[in-house]
């Protein structure tokens, strides 16, 4: 099947409609992945914590959406409330648990986060039930796909792409241009120094963990209506998010953005030319980055 499939890839590159379809398909995968991975990267960059429970926050986002959408019926309000809800959960989680392990060995982080993956999975099972659920597309988006350069893009996916890009820009501006962003970056660099300047470092930590959680939650909120939701669904996204962070560079938001889109492109074009090994391209990309540029595309040199 090889050469024939390869021809399909060549054909696709020479057709505007195929290119558009596959690029948008890459962006859809990429944006959800970016939202989750950027939170992961931010938390690691500032707090030095590898939050393995990040996938569980993504799951919470989806379940909050499920309940809020049933209660409120308004999708826009639901998106905002559900994402904030996960952010608040993140702050509480950080204040009660995560803050105790900042100076502990990595193994403790792993154990704590792993414990919370199981606790949250079971909580979700108790509250929402063991069966998988589907939120279903909000009615406003139940319409024929939008026509774009001879290809079709579902309107809901356009929203996901736009939200992803807006969040990426907002996050970047926030971190690089505002006073709070500066404080966060300074804390990542030297928390003692920041503390000596009279800034409440624990509060910065809580805020960063909250923002990171909110981003993961937003990923779950937006993916919720088009994916199936079930206890343990976080496991499906956490590995890919880690890969994104490795490719983009630990702690780098632009890196996470680019890394997520690259993974999306690898998969959407990989399946055209190499349908049997499409999934492996993600890992090949990661391996290449690790060989050629181990600190990741935007990663900083180890001090």
């Amino acid at each position: 099947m090889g050469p024939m499939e390869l021809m399909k890839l060549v054909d696709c590159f020479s057709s505007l409609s195929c290119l558009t379809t596959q690029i948008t398909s890459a962006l859809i995968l990429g944006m959800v992945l970016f939202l989750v991975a950027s939170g992961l990267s931010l938390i690691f960059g500032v707090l030095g914590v590898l939050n393995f429970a990040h996938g569980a926050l993504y799951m919470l986002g989806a379940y909050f959406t499920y309940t809020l959408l049933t209660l409120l019926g308004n999708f826009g309000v639901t998106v905002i409330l559900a994402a904030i809800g996960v952010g608040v959960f993140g702050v509480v989680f950080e204040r009660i648990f995560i803050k105790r392990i900042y100076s502990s060995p990595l193994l403790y982080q792993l154990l704590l986060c792993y414990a919370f993956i199981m606790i949250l999975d079971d909580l979700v099972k108790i509250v929402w039930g063991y069966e998988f659920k589907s939120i279903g597309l909000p009615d406003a988006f139940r319409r024929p796909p939008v026509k774009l350069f001879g290809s079709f893009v579902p309107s809901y996916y356009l929203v996901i792409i736009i939200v992803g890009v807006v969040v990426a820009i907002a996050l970047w501006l926030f971190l690089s241009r505002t006073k709070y962003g500066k404080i966060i970056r300074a804390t990542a660099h030297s928390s003692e120094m920041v503390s000596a300047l009279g800034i409440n470092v624990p509060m910065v930590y809580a805020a960063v963990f909250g923002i990171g959680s909110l981003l993961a939650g937003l990923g779950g909120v937006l993916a919720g209506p088009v994916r199936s939701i079930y206890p343990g669904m976080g496991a499906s996204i956490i590995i890919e998010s880690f890969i994104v962070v490795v490719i983009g560079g630990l702690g780098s938001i632009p890196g996470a953005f680019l890394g997520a889109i690259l993974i999306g492109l690898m998969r959407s074009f990989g399946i055209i030319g190499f349908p049997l090994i499409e999934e492996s391209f993600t890992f090949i990309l990661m391996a290449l980055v690790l060989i050629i540029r181990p600190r990741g595309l935007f990663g900083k040199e180890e001090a």
Partner: protein
Amino acid sequence: MTRRDFLKTTAAGAATLSLGTLTPFSKAWAQAPIKIGFVSIFSGRVAMLGETGLKGAQLAADEYNAKGGVLGRKIEIIHRDSAGKIEEAVRIARDFVVKDKVDFLMDHSSSREAFAVKEVSRDLKIITMVTASETTDQSADPKIWTPYSLRAARQSIHDCCVAGYYAAKISKEHGLTKWYSISPDYAYGHDSTERFFEFLQKKNPEVKIAGQLWPKLAEPDYTPHITKMMADKPHAFYSALWGGDTVAFIEQALMYGLFEQSKFFCINIADYTVLKALKKVPEGLHTGSRYLRNVPDTPANHQFADSYWKKYGELPTNWSWETYSGMLFLMEGIKKVGSTDTEKVVKAMKGLRIKAPAGATDVDGYITMRARDHTHTGYAIAWGRTISKEPYVTDLFYLPWSEILKEEEEYLKKKGWLK
């Protein structure tokens, strides 16, 4: 009285009260219960397997107990979660036998664990009723066969045979010759897809496979697969995706209008878990019946669905009828020989015919534990077209069991499993 004492007393009181209401028939069972150890998955993505499987088995146990039990003994089911881990399933199965002294095992696991639990069954000479593993090899491969492991579950060869015949009929009617497939990338997905196309191409040689996609199990996003098929424009495609994966795939494909371009044949849509999770069941998809209250459309099956609904407030799943059937085989086997002795019950179940909710109408509503290989036949399998309202599937197509068994025999001979 301190606050603590007050709480303690209240709690104790409440406990006593609830005990009182929980045992309204405080009938003393003269003898020890017949104990069944139920091993399955109760956590994570496929928790549904264990939960609804156990409900089916428990419903059967309750019905027997209400009639005074079996041999005057109460039926008791104890269950444990293997979390889908092979070594855990084996450990649980062994513990059930050695520590809990169960009389029988019910193995309601995926095929991976089921193959391992089968060895426990062989080793400890304990009857295991296999109620979820659909892989044909489970009972057909003589190298791993043991008389103590019996199956009351669908078998993929039966399922795919009906699927292939049905798809051949529809594809001839509508000229669907260019086919694709999208199935989960593990043993079941490959096995089901391969068998399906064997039967389809046998019955309609015009059919060509233009491409095959293998997303990983629990893939959250099928957009690349969907756009690939949008670009390649097959006339139709087959899928062995199941559960939440089916739901996610359908929701995502709908957004692209994939089903308007290509006819969808999915073996696993018609199960209430999937149908209920879909916000709106799309019309015109082709599906096999996992469990529907009208497949078979018999009073026994409707009554089963009603009793289940009355007890649990939900409809049975594919897994509920399988465990329910498994319990019937065990209990009727025990009754037949008046004993729970392993060898005797195995012998009693050989060739046992039971009127059951799942029994297909062309075999008079009977399911049979086939003597040759200890796997059951005669359960209803249908394919049809989806509609958005109950009963969700219409234009039901059945293949007579005589035909299914002929095809199965041919396949087994080709494999060298049947002389």
